[in-house]
Every structure is written in C-alpha cells, then in structure tokens.
C-alpha cells in the first residue's frame, strides 16, 4: 500500500516536471545541429541541419525522405527542415516567436520582418555578403542598399521576382481580372477593356451556358475577402485608374504626391458595379463568408467564370488540379484581362523587370549556431546545378535535354510536376529560399520551367492556346497589354506592409483596414447603394486616412531622394 503511494507521488512529480519542461520548448524552434565550422570543400562527413520558419501557409509540405532533398543534401552537405504557417496570421506567428525569444535558424516573417529586426532577433549580413558570390550577385549595390534598416545594416533578402540575364517572364504573376478560356471562346474572343464589358460577357455566357461539363451550376463572379487576402476585393480601383500595384495608395507620377484610391470616383463606380451585379445574382452570394480553402476548391471545380486575384494566390493550386483531373480541355483555365474603368486608358496591371519588395525576405536569426554554414546554404542553393535541381528536377527523370541543350518535359513529366503526391515525395524547391527567374547561366534555358518558351507553349492547355492565337499573344502578359511607367519608388506597399500602430499613420492604416473589412461587404450587398456608400465614407474618414497619406508621402520623398542620390554617383 505504502509503496504504491510513494510510486504515485513520484509519478505525479515526474509528470509535473515533464509538463514544465514541455513548456520551455517552443515547437519549430529547434536549432540546427551546427556540425563544424567548415565552409568550403566537398560534402562534409556530417550533414548540417538547419531549421526554418516561413510565415506563409505551405503550398507543398515535402516528405521527410523527399528524393531531391536527399540529392541536394548529398551535394552541399546541408539540409533545411521547413516549417510553415498553419491556421494563423503571419504577424501573430511572428509575435509569438518574439514573445518567446526563441527562433529557428532561418526565418521569413512575411511583412513582420521589421518587428523581428527591432526585437534584435536577426544577424546583420554586411560582413558576410562579400564572401558568398551567389548571394552578392543576387542584387545590385543600390538594391542591397534598399534593404538597410535604421542602423544602416542589411538583415534580410527578398527571395523572389529577380531576373537573371534576359527576362523570360511569361505569366502575369500579379493581379488581374481573370476570365475562363471557355467564356472567351464562346464569345468569339471579343475585346474586353472595361469593367462593364467584363461583366456583360460573364452574364451573357452564363445565360447561355449555366453549367459546367458535369452539370454543376456556374458562379459567374466571386471574390475572396478573407483576412489579408481581401486585396482581391479592395485594391482593384488603383488598377482601374491605370496605376500599378503600389498596393496601399497611388502615386501621381507628375506631382509625386500620394493619392488614396479608396475614395476616388473610380472606387465608387467599381463598388457600385459590384453592387448591381450582386443584386442581379451574378456575384457569388457566399463570397464574403468563404475561407481561402473554400475559394480554392470552388475555383478547382471550374464553376467560377471570373474573379479578381493575383496569379500566385490561386494558379499554382488550381491549374495543377485542372491538369491532374484532366479538366483543362473544358477551358477552365484563367486568362488575365487588363481592365480599366473607361475605354482607351493605359493600364499597369503588369510591371516588368521584377518587383523588389524590401519589406520582407529571408533572414538568419541570432539563435543560428552556424551562421557561416547558413550563408553557405543559401549560396549553394543559388548555384546553377542546385537551382536546376530545385526547379527543373532530376535530368531524364523530370526533364529531358534536346540536342541543342534545351530542357523540355514530356506530357507525363508535366503531369508529374503538377501531381501533389509527386511534389511531396520527389520535388524539393526550397520554395521560400532565394531563387532566380529569367535566363539560366548557360544562356539558353530559363531558370524556371514555366518560363522556358518552348516548354511554356507546349504545356498550355488547348483552349488557352486558342486564346493566345485569337489575341495574337505569346504570353499571358501580351494579353494584358500593360505599359510600364512605375517610378523608382515602386512598390509603395513594401513600406505600408510594415506599418504598425506605433505611429499615427500606422494606427490610421490599421483602422482603415478594419473599416474596409467591415464596410465593403455591406456596400456590395446594400439595397440602397448611395446611402450605404455615404455612411461608409463617413466611417472611413473617421479613421483619419490623412495621417496614413502623410506618412506615405514622407516615405515617397525619402525614396525619391535616395534614388537621386544613388543615380548621381
């Protein structure tokens, strides 16, 4: 009896101790094993293991025994275990890291990088960049300088949208009003320039063809408004007015002044149009309550004829589903349209030359035990051999090389590349580590399969090819017909994304967001549009948007001055 009691006490205390121990450990914050100080030479005997957290939901989470990851690890002697955002917002997740004070080796905190810097969580890059040629080469000195923080040092690099050699961009990676190829084919490829044209085609098509191939009812137009993804609803007015994606404001190119796109006549006309279409039943009634997952699964069934969104937000998932389910032939793939509010205006939906968003990127944290190793890891991932492995895959397995040295894929290989199972067990892109688009260092191929001209053309579904022929286009970008007038300050969102409530402008920015989240659904659904719009404008004015505009103006002036100083030299 007594013995069991003692055992019970021991067990209880053991449990409480282990419960406490469990508390001190943050999941995902296990640090790398940091094998040796070795930075050069062939694969070291012991594999270095790093950890990384990316404040975005994973598009693909690879398996532990992923095949290409293994090959890369063998070649460079290091690997990285990636953790992704799940069920949280980026800033919440980063806030939790900061509050706990423990970090993984690599971190990409999305728009919360400044907060990580301010919390003293990051390693400065200045002493390392010159040692790693592939990293150094990634940006020009002026570009690197834009990453400098208030103490004059560099703490992260943006991994995306950087072009090596000749630009081979084929896809509108950014925003557009998208329309299914089947609608365009049915309407005999008309010229669609304005919002009115767009909805007219959608309505007419839906009246004539109310269902998909398997009898599901079409949804002529939907919009995603969940959380930060509500840009699909709210920022179209800037594009409709012919401005590029500064994201949070428009910049008058002549006067160099910040303008608010939320209150323009164009904004009112855009929302009025949505309101009309909503009352007609053209706009999806479930649009405002759908989650991102629901939105993606809606698009994947092919029922949605059109929406406003950014390519990366839907296409990677949705197009892959069309490919694997073999529904591409019904013309469900989306074509971008460069709409403006009135006819005959120039549009800037697409901005060429890559977009440098200095507000976010990949950083190395103070908890990383082997900083040199971490830099070497990034450097190695950017070497051509590894870059090809990441994005093209294994030669002869994932792609073939013709007699001229050009890479191409067979139909089966393309299907594999779109197959979720194949992606998790075979492909390893280290998708949030730095990567190139544009031309490969061999001068022939593209860095990314999607940008290989022959590969791009061959992989297009039949209905999309027909659209391209009808409009005389070679790429998605040709269809948009955008002009490029973005100034050196572009994109302004790289500043506003970092704004927090610690400044008057940031407080206004947060309140404006809250206000728009609450009011835009009301505005679109309102029975009496004009009255609701006036109420919305009143509530919006109470958020003091002028404070936000003033702070953005300061940043704009600063950027222009910095650019002038840099170009004078």
């Amino acid at each position, binding site marked *: 009896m007594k013995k069991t*009691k003692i055992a*019970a*006490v021991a067990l209880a205390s053991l449990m409480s101790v282990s419960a406490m121990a469990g508390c001190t450990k943050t999941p995902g914050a296990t640090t790398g094993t940091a094998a040796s100080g070795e930075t050069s030479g062939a694969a070291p005997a012991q594999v270095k293991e790093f950890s990384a957290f990316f404040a975005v939901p994973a598009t693909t989470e690879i398996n532990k025994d992923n095949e290409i990851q293994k090959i890369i690890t063998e070649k460079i002697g290091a690997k990285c275990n990636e953790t992704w955002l799940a069920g949280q917002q980026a*800033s*919440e997740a980063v806030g939790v890291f900061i509050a706990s004070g423990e970090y993984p080796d690599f971190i990409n905190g999305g728009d919360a990088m400044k907060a990580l810097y*301010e919390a*003293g969580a990051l390693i400065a890059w200045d002493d390392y960049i010159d040692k790693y040629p592939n990293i150094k080469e990634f940006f020009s000195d002026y570009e690197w300088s834009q990453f400098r923080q208030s103490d004059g040092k560099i703490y992260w690099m943006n991994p995306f949208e950087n072009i090596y050699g000749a630009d081979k961009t084929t896809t509108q990676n950014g925003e557009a009003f998208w329309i299914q190829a089947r609608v365009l084919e049915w309407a005999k490829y008309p010229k669609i320039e304005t919002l009115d044209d767009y909805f007219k085609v959608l309505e007419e098509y839906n009246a004539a063809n109310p269902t998909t191939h398997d009898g599901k009812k079409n949804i002529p137009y939907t919009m995603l408004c969940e959380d930060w993804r509500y840009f699909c609803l709210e920022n179209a007015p800037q594009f409709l007015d012919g401005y590029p994606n500064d994201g949070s404001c428009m910049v008058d190119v002549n006067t160099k002044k910040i303008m608010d796109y939320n209150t323009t006549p164009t904004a009112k006309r855009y929302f009025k149009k949505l309101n009309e279409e909503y009352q007609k039943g053209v706009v999806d009634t*479930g649009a405002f309550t759908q989650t991102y997952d629901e939105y993606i699964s809606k698009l994947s069934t092919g029922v949605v004829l059109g929406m406003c969104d950014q390519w990366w937000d839907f296409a990677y998932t949705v197009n892959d589903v069309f490919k694997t389910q073999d529904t591409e032939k019904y013309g469900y793939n989306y074509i971008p349209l460069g709409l403006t509010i009135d006819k005959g205006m120039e549009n800037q939906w697409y901005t060429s030359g890559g977009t440098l968003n200095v507000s976010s990127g990949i950083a190395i944290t103070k908890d990383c035990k082997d900083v040199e190793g971490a830099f070497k890891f990034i450097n190695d991932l950017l070497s051509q051999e590894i870059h090809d492995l990441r994005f093209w895959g294994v030669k002869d397995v994932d792609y073939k090389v013709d007699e001229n040295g050009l890479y191409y894929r067979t139909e089966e290989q393309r299907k594999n590349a779109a197959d979720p199972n194949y992606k998790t067990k075979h492909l390893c892109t280290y998708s949030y580590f730095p990567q190139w688009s544009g031309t490969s260092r061999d001068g022939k191929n593209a860095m990314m399969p999607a940008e290989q001209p022959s590969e791009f053309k061959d992989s297009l579904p039949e209905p999309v090819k027909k659209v391209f022929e009808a409009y005389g286009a070679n790429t998605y970008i040709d269809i948009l017909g955008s002009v490029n007038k973005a100034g050196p300050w572009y994109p302004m969102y790289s500043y506003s994304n970092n704004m927090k409530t610690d400044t008057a402008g940031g407080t206004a920015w947060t309140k404006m967001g*809250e206000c728009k989240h609450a009011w*835009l659904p009301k505005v679109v659904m309102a029975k009496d549009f004009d009255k609701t719009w006036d109420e919305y404008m009143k509530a919006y004015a109470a958020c003091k948007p002028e404070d936000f505009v003033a702070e953005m103006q300061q940043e704009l002036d600063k950027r222009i001055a910095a650019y002038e100083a840099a170009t004078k030299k």
Partner: protein
Amino acid sequence: MASNTIKPEDLQAHKKVKFLDEAKRQPFLLISSALLLIYGIIFYYIPVIGWITAFQDYKPAKGFFGSQWIGLEKFKKLFENKTFYLAFRNTLAMGVINLVFHFVTAIAFALLLNEVRIFIAKKFIQTVSYMPHFLSWIIVTAIVREVLSADGIVNEFLMNVCGNETAIDFFAVKGYFWWIVAFTNVWKETGWNAIIYLAAITAIDPSLYEAADMDGASRFQKMWYITLPSLRPTIMILLLINIGNVLNAGFELQYILGNDVISDVSKILDVFILDWGISQFDFSLGTAAGIFKSVIALILVCLGNFIAKKTGDERLF
C-alpha cells in the same frame, strides 16, 4: 484523550505534536498539496509579473528594465478604441448567453438522465453525450461550418422538408451568430457539465425519496422538491466559479467562424487582443486589455459572492 484535562500552557505544545502526528499519517496528501501550491505559484502568480509591461512601452529587445515607462497611456489608447467596446459588448453577451445555457441545460439533462430507469440506457446516453467534450474546438468549428454550410444537413433539411427555396447562409446573418455559438457550446459541453450534478444526485439521502414515496409524491414532485433543492449548494458554487469566466467566452469559434459580414457581432476581446496587441507587436496594449479582463472577472466574482452571502447560500469566501 477525553480523560485528559488540557491546561492552556500545554495547548500549544499539544497542537504541535498533533500536527506532526497528523503529518506523519498523511505524507501523500501533504506532498500532493505542496505540488499543487508550487504549480499555482509558477503558473498563476509568477506570470502576473508580466503585468508591468502594460505600463511600459514594452519592446522585447529592451526587456522589462530597458523599456520606457508610460503610465496609463496604453489604457488610454485601449479605451479610445471603438473596436474595443464592440468586442467587449460581444464578449459579455456571448459569455452571459453561454453561462445561462450551460447551467440550464446541464442541470436539466442531469435531472432527466437520473430518471432513466434502465441502467444500460442511462450509461449509454451519458457516454454519448459527453463524448463531444473531448473533441478539440478546431474540429468542432469544422463540424459546425459543415453542418451549416449551403449544402450541409441543416440546409438540406430546410429545403427538402420545410420547403425553403434557397439555402440560408448562416454565417452571413448577424442575428444568428451568438446563438450558433451558444448552441455549439451546449452540444459540446452539456454531457460533460452534467457529470458533476449526477455525482451530487447520488449523494442525496435515499430516505428522503422513500419518505416522499410514502407521502405519495409523483416523480416530477420528487425532482422539484428533493433533487433540485439538494443540488442547490453545488449549483451555487459552480455558478460563482463560472461567473469569473464570463469574459472567457471562447476563442476558436469566434476566430474561425467569424467573417467580415458579421464581424460587428463576432469579434470578441481575445480576437481584439490578437489583432491590436500581438499582430501589431504592441504587447503592452494586449497586456492592458488582459488586465482589464481580469479586473472585470474579479469584480463579477466578488459581486456574486456578496449576493450569495446576503441570500445565505453556499459561497466561495
């Protein structure tokens, strides 16, 4: 012991001896209560030190000692924020609705279950009813979302049996949200909450029921005049404990099921703290809101206790 006469000067020594005696006989109780005490100090008292950040412009890089003291500025910022009041109202409303439903359904369920004569049926119902308690809230939100979706079971029923023409979007109507939350809580927790009442019912002296039988009381009368009054102390204590939790009206349900259309009624204090505190890295503001919640909870508990004292009921302190 009774034969000994105790002198006042011996009393002290005697007490000491008695305590040691007692202690020797129950080391297990002492150790386990000591563990509980340590647990309480570590997890409930030490974290309160963090409250000082509410009076600072707290920056994690500078820590407690390096951050600037700003007095009540964060509280001012909090009370100037309109969304805060909205969130407070919603939290209070959902908290009160949940509290009322919690008690009414758990007690009613316990009383009814107690009247079930067939032992196996009783056990079966009890097990089935408390199972949902073990589901995580994330799973429950997914179930609720599915059940109430356009092609979910509720809309199927309404359209096929009740003759509704179109599906109702339950998450787009402000009037429904609080009741969806309340009902989900009832579904998940009623069986579990009833357990304590069922236990209390078994402790009621059977002779009371036998006497009532002799007097010819019906089953309903026995329930009303014996079972329910006997449960009164249990009910009062649980009520007092739960009043303090009114502002903890849940988090996952509102966070996940809320959307822009109904944010006026779905946003609760914990979501507000997430939006304006953690997401903005304004930990001070979040802490200030947390302190506010604790103060309100303390006031509610004291008030409840005071009323219980006045009416002569069972109370906490």
